[in-house]
Structures are given as C-alpha cells and as structure tokens.
C-alpha cells in the first residue's frame, strides 16, 4: 500500500513546474523520508507509461521513452506545390541531373531555397552528386517516388517538346509572362 510520504512526494513532483532536488522536495512536503519515498516511487512507476527519473540529482516524472511516438504525432496535410515548385520539378525531370544555377537559367527566374526543399520533402527530388565543374555545384535528379506519383513508367514517358507544341503548351507566351509576374509577387513576401 502507498504510504503518506510517497503520496506527498508523488503529488509534489507531479505538480512541479521543473525537476526538483531532494532538498526542494523536502521543503515542499515537510519533514518526511523523501529518499525512501523516491526510491519506492521509482520502483512503482518502472515499466508504466510514466517514469520517475533522476538527472543530475534532480527528480521528475516523464513519459516512457518508448512511447515518444504517441507524444509526437505527424499529421499529413495536403498542400499544392507552388508554381515555382512545379516548374522547378518539371525542369529537373526534363533535364536531370541539373544544378540550381541551370534550373534558374532555364526558368529565367531565380528559385528560392524553399522550392527545392519542398520537392525533396515530397520525396520527388534527390541530390544526385556534384557537377565536375567550377564550384562543383550540387545537382538534382528525380526519384522513383516521382515516377510513381505522376504515373510514369520512366522519364522517357514525359512528352517531348514537339508533343508539347502540338498540345499548344508552348503557345501562350503572354499568359505565361503574366503568370510569371504574379509568381514574382508571391515569392516577394
């Protein structure tokens, strides 16, 4: 059965805003055999979802380390790629392996740091070594997950320039320029 010393120490440590030394616990709960209570409590909580631990002479309760996954849940939130993101992805897919400077040269616009990060976070783009050129820039390529996500058997399944022209995707010059302006505004903030 739990005794009063143990109850008092348990409550004090539970309600404490920081870990406590034996002296501090004693000051809180009065003249009790705090050490003995601490050792019984530690034993009691061993193997439970919560543990009593001592770190550098200070005691505190914490959740069991093997349950950390409960405390940190990840929730997926659908998010659309930005226009810069999708263009960068397209350029990497058509030209891989390609460096950041090359992507910018093709796009005609600089890309922000977050753009490639987002593509890597999505698992679609990976660093593929360095270009043996001055500055040895990092080069990027697409991943198998990229092919899976876009339903492509291989990169050869991407429509070529002539296909794009036939589909009218190379025509709307003015429209594309307008969109570029909008996008510049977006990246500004």
């Amino acid at each position, binding site marked *: 059965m739990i005794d009063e010393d143990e109850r008092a120490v348990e409550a004090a440590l*539970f309600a404490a805003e920081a870990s406590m030394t034996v002296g501090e616990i004693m000051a809180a709960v009065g003249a009790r055999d705090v050490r003995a209570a601490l050792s019984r409590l530690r034993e009691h909580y061993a193997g439970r979802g919560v543990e009593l631990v001592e770190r550098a002479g200070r005691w505190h309760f914490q959740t069991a380390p093997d349950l950390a996954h409960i*405390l940190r*849940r*990840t929730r997926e939130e659908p998010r659309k790629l930005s226009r810069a993101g*999708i263009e960068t992805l397209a*350029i990497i897919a058509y030209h891989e392996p390609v460096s950041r400077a090359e992507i910018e040269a093709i796009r005609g616009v600089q890309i922000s740091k977050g753009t490639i990060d987002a593509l890597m976070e999505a698992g679609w783009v990976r660093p593929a070594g360095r270009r043996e050129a001055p500055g040895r820039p990092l080069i990027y390529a697409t991943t198998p997950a990229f092919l899976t996500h876009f339903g492509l058997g291989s990169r050869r399944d991407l429509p070529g320039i002539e296909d794009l022209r036939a589909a009218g995707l*190379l025509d709307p010059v003015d429209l594309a320029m307008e969109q570029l302006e909008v996008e510049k505004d977006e990246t500004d903030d």
Partner: protein
Amino acid sequence: MIEEDDNFELPLRAERETLTLDIDGWEGPLDLLLALARVQKVDLREISILALVEQYLAFVEGAKALKLELAADYLVMAAWLAFLKSGLLLPRDPEVEPSPEELALRLQLRLQRLDAMREAGARLMARDRIGRDVFLRGAPEGLRVVRKPAWEADLYELIAAYGAVRARTGPAVHIVSRRPVMSLETAIELVSRMVGARLDWASLESFLPEGLDPLYRRSALASSFLATLELARQGKVALEQEAPFAPLMVRRL
C-alpha cells in the same frame, strides 16, 4: 461590487446579534431582508413574515433617525412591506387579489430562493478547485502534432509548367495579326446615313450591314455606339434604352 474575503460563509451575517447600519454591506433590500430573516430563524420556511416586516421597517426607521441616506430601492421595499403589513393585519377584503397571505408566501419563497443560491455559491467555492486544492501536471510535455505537408501535383500540371517555362524562355517570335476594325469616322458616316434614311426609332444593331465577319461585326457595333453618342452630343440624334442591356434605340432629331 463588494469584494468578500475568500472564506465568505453564509451564516456569518446571521450570527450577529444586532445589525450594524452598514448599508454598503447589503446588496439591496432583498439581501437585507434575508439577513434579518436568518437572525429570526435558520429555517426560512418557519419565519414570521409579519415579524420580518417589523424588523425591516424598524431598520429603515433607525437609518432615517441616524440621517443615513438609504438607496431608493430600500424605501420602495419599505413602502411595499408597510402595505403588506396592513393587508395582513386588517380584516380580509376578498376583492383584493392576490391576498396578502399569498404575497407574504411569495416573499418567503423569494427569500428561500436567494438563500438557496447563496448557499450553493458557498458550497461551490468550497469544492476542491483546480489551482487551489488540486493541481494539474506542472510541466506537461504536451501532445505535439507535427504537420507534415503532403505535396500534391499532377502530371498535366507538370508538363504544362514545363511548356510554360519553354514558351517563356524560348526565342519569342511576335506576329501581330491584323484584325478587321471599323474606324469611328466610318461608323459616324454609317450611322448618319442610316438615321437619315429612317423616321422612327430603330435599334442600333439594325444599322449594321448583314453578313459581316463576326470579329468585324463586334468592332462595327462598338464604333457605331460611339458614333451615336457623338451624334447625340451634336444634337443630331436622340437615344433611348428601356432597361439595362435592352436594345439601344436611335432616332433622327
């Protein structure tokens, strides 16, 4: 509002033998009546309303004698209680509804209700309250939710984006296509001629020649509209339109 100390308890006021004339201490006449009633009897169902009325009236008289300023509602209550008292003492007039006894009962009920809530409040405050009697965990780790973006894009967007990039950065060849337009001069000439040929109202569109190329027709319509405005300004034609988007009617002046 009156700030009470935290161990405010109900019986406190009632336990006093005599009441001090501390008007500020009472939250209105009903509060005062309740305190007087509790001096009389602990069980409010057993109090004598007549005695209570006497006590209240005596209290108000005492306050007047000491030239204390009583708030109007205390005096209103005193007047009502004096009325109740006379009703209770005088021979009963069956015409008067509700009877004085019923009014007395209602007052008693009202005091009970207030008393019940006052006691309930005290009992609530005496409960084990979080932050005073019981405590939550002082340093909870927190259940964090890490939001992980699930990026979305489809193949069409991808190739369309590539097309846009190539279109934007490829050598641009600009060809200005010539569109058929009707000049304003032509339109003025056209409208003047058509209006001159008619006497009655006619819609603007009826002035346009049949079988025009659709693009040219649009230009002709726009120019003719400007032309009629110009002619109207010159006082040569009158314009009329019954409602927004209704046909624009034109007539020679």
